[in-house]
């Protein structure tokens, strides 16, 4: 967060306990109100104020864009704030301690589950990898953690719940964990340690380990929540606008049967093609879900869409470039291959289950 905003925020934070709760309550009420009047507000703007015909394609797309941008921004802010505060009771150091000494199998399951709740930013993927492996945690277990962390996080869960409901969310979380656990286990069984850059095993951890979030006051946790909302929104803002923009264009102009014809339930290759398109793309769950939403409205099957989303968030070019510093190309290629196969399998499964 920009220094000026940070200073402002620090000064504005109420210093008393009751003051903090009053502020949080006021924000919650404001959030619910804004979320509630969002649709009504844009109806008034487009129909009454601008006197546009809501059934034309352009108006329909513009309305979708404004409505969805506000809706997703509100959902994200709320979810990130709550999740950051909850996650501030967990840390990567505690996760490593919990994984230490676990065998493969049990370790993969624990790593997948911990990947969901541990606060983790992909720019820390490399130090976390070194920290895990040099502490003796098996390679496959470490990879389970690294796969689960971007794939199944609380922000994705919250957004999926609000956009698609419980059934889709449960399937997504279950299968995401299955991919992380399964792919990590398979990669561990392959004994690929020779393709980890040697310096990782040679690294000795001299420094004393410091727990990133231990002993924070509640005020600091709230402040972290606000800062995280600001920082995530600024970081993913462009992706969000592009994602919702494409979503709006599809909403307004794409013919109803475009996707059912080319990527509908009958199209056998829909899932692998969606995954192949998704791998190099870089976005996160929040940037990709508005697009998924409007493609789903146009009849694209949910399994194909979720496979696309998983490929986008779990595998991306920037992340591969980061991981290349600790993994050799061969291991990186096998990693991408195994995870992609898992995602494709899950996509087909979803198309059958949700058909």
């Amino acid at each position, binding site marked *: 967060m920009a220094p000026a905003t940070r200073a402002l925020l620090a000064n504005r934070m109420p210093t008393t306990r009751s003051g903090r709760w009053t502020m949080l309550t006021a924000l919650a009420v404001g959030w619910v109100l804004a979320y509630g009047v969002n649709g009504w507000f844009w109806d008034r703007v487009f129909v009454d104020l601008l006197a546009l015909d809501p059934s034309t394609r352009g108006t329909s797309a513009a309305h979708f864009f404004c409505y969805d941008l506000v809706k997703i921004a509100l959902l994200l802010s709320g979810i990130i704030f709550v999740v950051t505060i909850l996650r501030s009771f967990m840390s990567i150091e505690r996760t490593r301690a919990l994984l230490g000494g676990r065998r493969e199998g049990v370790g993969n399951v624990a790593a997948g589950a911990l990947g969901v709740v541990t606060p983790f930013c992909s720019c820390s993927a490399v130090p976390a990898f070194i920290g895990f492996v040099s502490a003796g945690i098996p390679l496959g277990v470490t990879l389970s953690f690294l796969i689960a962390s971007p794939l199944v996080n609380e922000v994705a869960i919250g957004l999926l719940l609000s956009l698609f409901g419980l059934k889709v969310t449960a399937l997504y979380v279950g299968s995401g964990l299955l991919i992380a656990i399964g792919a990590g286990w398979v990669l561990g069984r392959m004994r690929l340690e020779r393709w980890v850059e040697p310096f990782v095993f040679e690294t000795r951890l001299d420094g004393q380990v*410091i727990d990133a979030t231990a002993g924070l006051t509640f005020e600091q946790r709230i402040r972290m929540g606000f800062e995280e909302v600001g920082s995530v929104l600024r970081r993913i803002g462009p992706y969000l606008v592009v994602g919702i923009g494409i979503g709006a264009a599809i909403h307004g102009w794409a013919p109803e049967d475009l996707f059912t014809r080319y990527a509908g339930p009958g199209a056998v290759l829909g899932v692998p093609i969606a995954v192949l398109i998704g791998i190099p793309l870089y976005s996160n769950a929040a940037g990709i879900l508005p697009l998924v939403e409007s493609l789903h409205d146009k009849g694209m099957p949910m399994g194909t869409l979720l496979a696309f989303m998983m490929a986008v968030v779990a595998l991306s070019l920037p992340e591969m470039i980061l991981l290349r510093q600790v993994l050799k190309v061969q291991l990186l290629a096998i990693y991408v291959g195994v995870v992609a196969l898992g995602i494709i399998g899950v996509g087909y499964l979803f198309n059958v289950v949700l058909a």
Partner: protein
Amino acid sequence: MIIKVLGPGCRNCRDLEAATRRALDELGTSAELEKVTDYPTIARYGVMATPALVIDERVVCSGRVPGADEITAFLLSASPPPT
């Protein structure tokens, strides 16, 4: 006093560096501020979540950008002002 900011150079690391510089200026403390960006060295400090702040080879904070008041407190406890 030697201060190091550990991190590969993402936005959080730059924020931490700027905040630390400001805190130093406000205190009027002279200190060497060094950026550590290579992963083996970062890992050797036991840091698994960047950015991290190291004062005189001691990690005081990692995984988040602490508030200005916190940074000031870290600096003061590492080198108390002359009385």
